[in-house]
């Protein structure tokens, strides 16, 4: 049987910005989920890129991640035993109207085991320095995922207008 890739829901941030983009009541009829985000923030914490966090079922606990990054001049790594990272988008310091991209894949989201999340991202700006990276997240919780939240850290303001998030379901992956 051919694999299927279906749009479940999407959202575009309006003129006031948004502190979070949350998908709730996610159907359990797929095997995997894929979330694609084009994002920018309304503020910055003195840097060109803004790290995003994720929550499953409203939970920001039991998360950990390890990431590899490159910014055009140097490579680095990062990790946390207590939080998630879903990649970095463009902050308000970057060229106007540029948006970073997050590609987030969540296999076996209905399983009764811990959940992995792989992220491939790049922030953008119309200049030489941007951040790209690959991140492996682990949510140490066996619950099936029914909601996904993308809260923006207030240090970077809000999700800026025209940021978008598209949630897809993948069958027979």
């Amino acid at each position, binding site marked *: 049987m051919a694999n299927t890739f279906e749009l479940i*829901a999407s*959202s575009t941030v*309006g003129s006031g*910005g*948004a*502190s979070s983009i949350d998908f*709730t009541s996610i159907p359990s009829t797929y095997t995997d989920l894929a979330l694609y985000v084009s994002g920018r923030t309304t503020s910055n914490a003195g840097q060109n890129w803004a790290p995003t966090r994720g929550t499953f079922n409203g939970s920001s606990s039991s998360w950990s991640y390890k990431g590899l990054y490159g910014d055009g001049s140097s490579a680095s790594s990062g990790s946390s035993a207590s939080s998630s990272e879903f990649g970095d988008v463009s902050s308000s310091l970057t060229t106007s109207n540029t948006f970073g991209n997050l590609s987030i894949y969540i296999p076996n989201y209905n399983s009764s085991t811990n959940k992995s999340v792989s992220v491939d991202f790049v922030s953008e700006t119309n200049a030489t320095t941007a951040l790209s990276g690959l991140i492996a997240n682990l949510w140490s919780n066996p619950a099936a995922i029914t909601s996904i939240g993308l809260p923006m*850290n*207030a*240090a970077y303001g809000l999700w800026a207008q025209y940021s978008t998030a598209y949630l897809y379901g993948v069958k027979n992956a």
Partner: protein
Amino acid sequence: MPNPTKIVIDCSTGIEEIIELTDAEIAEMTYAAELAAEKKAEEDAKAASDATAKAALLVKLGITADEAKLLLA
């Protein structure tokens, strides 16, 4: 001034709601922002300290940064 809002999309109905944050949620966001700012300040301080130590070591060795790279290549 109204509180910031969040977007909630119900995937079973396709209905999108724009919901104003509660004061408790605002307080949580502010706290998270303060933690992030502290973490960044610590990282910046460490980077500055490392750069100073590196420069001092190069002076002590009497070589340039490029020469040090050559040695490590």
